[in-house]
Each structure stands twice: as C-alpha cells, then as structure tokens.
C-alpha cells in the first residue's frame, strides 16, 4: 500500500509541470517581470477571459492572456479600444517555457495610459 501511494505520488509529480503550464493563475509563468511591446492582431474578449494576439517588433506572434470583463471594468481598461492594428504594451509574466510565446498580462498600457488589472498584486 505504501509502495503504491509512493508510485502514485511519483506519477502525479511527473505530470504536474505539464498541468502547471496551464493558464490559470501564475504557476505556468516565469518569476521575472516581462514586457511586450507590439501591435494587436487579434482580439477575443469576454468569459472565461480575454485573449489578444500581439505581433512584436521582431514579427513574433504572442498570445496574451487578459482578464475577465469585470476585471477590465474595475481597472478602467476601455475594451473597445482593444482592436487589431492598435499599438500596445503589456507587462506581466511570460511562460516559463522559453519556446512558448505566451504571457499573462498584469498591466496594459494603451496610448500612454497604464491600466492595472491586478492592483492588489505588486
């Protein structure tokens, strides 16, 4: 029995990093702050959460995870201004996987104005 639970724990821990790469919370991201500057190419807003495709200066296409509508509303982020072609800067954390061009945004900078999606997180 002990042996079996040990094996189960081993299997679970081996599977954990893959699961943790998921987009809920920050566990899949790198600890260091990350800034992405680019131009919005695609916009999907609304529940379960918003997603932007942003083209960086080096032409790389990034997937940026935003918040739910209520979070954007509380941050004062004008969702209507998130449109293809608009220049945008995003601060937050990128995926811990260096090959994955994906980040979770904590702050959105549009036309010089910073919108803090997570004011309780420093």
């Amino acid at each position, binding site marked *: 029995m002990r042996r079996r639970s040990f094996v189960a724990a081993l299997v679970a821990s081996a599977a954990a990093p893959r*699961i943790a*790469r*998921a*987009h*809920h919370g920050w566990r899949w991201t790198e600890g260091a702050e990350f800034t992405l500057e680019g131009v919005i190419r695609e916009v*999907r807003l*609304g*529940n*379960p959460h918003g*997603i932007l495709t942003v083209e960086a200066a080096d032409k790389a296409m990034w*997937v940026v995870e935003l918040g*739910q*509508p*209520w979070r954007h509303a509380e941050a004062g982020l004008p969702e209507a201004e998130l449109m293809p072609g608009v220049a945008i800067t995003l601060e937050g954390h990128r995926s811990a996987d260096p090959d994955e061009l994906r980040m979770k945004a904590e702050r959105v900078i549009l036309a010089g104005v910073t919108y803090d999606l997570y004011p309780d997180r420093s």
Partner: protein
Amino acid sequence: MEHLLAAIEGSAFAESLRWSRWTYPFVNALHVVGLAALFGSILPLDLRMLGLFRSVPLAGLTQTLRPVAASGLALAVASGLALFSVRATEYAAMPLFRAKLALVAFGAANALLLTGPRIHAVRPGLLRLAGAASLLTWLAVIVAGRWLGYLD
C-alpha cells in the same frame, strides 16, 4: 454547421453569459455539481458491476443511483451547453472537445444499454466489462473536460 455555431455564439444568451460577472462562474459551478452527481453515483454502480460489494443487491443500487446519475448528466449537459455557447466556434474546432463529446455519448449509450430489468440478464463477464468501460469513460470525460480549460 458554421452558421449554427455562429448563431449560438451570437445569441443573446451567449452574449449575456460572455460579459457576465457572476453568472458565468455560477454556471461553471453547476457543471461541476452535475458531473459530481453523475460520477459520484455511477462509481459505486461500476464498482458493483466489477464485482465489489456483492452482498448489496444490484436492483436496489440501480433504483437509487440511476436517477441521480441521469439527473447529474442532464445538469452537466445543460450547463455545458451554456458554457459552450460563449465560444462555440472555438470549442467545436478543438479535437479534445470533440473527443470529450464522443466519450460522453459512449458513456451514456453504455449506461442506457444496461437500463432497467435487462441488467439482470447480462452475463457476469459482460457486466464487468460494461462496468470497467463506464468507469474509464467517465474518468476520461472528466480529464478531457478539465484539460479543455487549459488549452487556448
């Protein structure tokens, strides 16, 4: 099909759910309640079919657990449709989502084939097979469903 998906996505219902603050997480919770009722009731049935708890008559178990499982499935399907509507086109294009639907259909068909009095006429070997299939299918449904939330 594309028109239908676009119509679902553009419906007033999907639109309100998409921008809601409380309703979306609430519907999400209903989905969990539905699958908890389904799996929680079908698990003892499957285990009984696999040969555990033999002292408990199958008839009594099915009488109580079947309706609970069926109600749980109904709730999970209804809430699942609501969650689906928010990004219908996107979900419909996901292989994992299609696989999940196929698994749900298989699990439901497997359960229906064992409905009512027929269950007593089934050979023990076949009963075990059906129980194992049911258990594995619903586990796979849960894993697939959970995984969907982690894909783009």
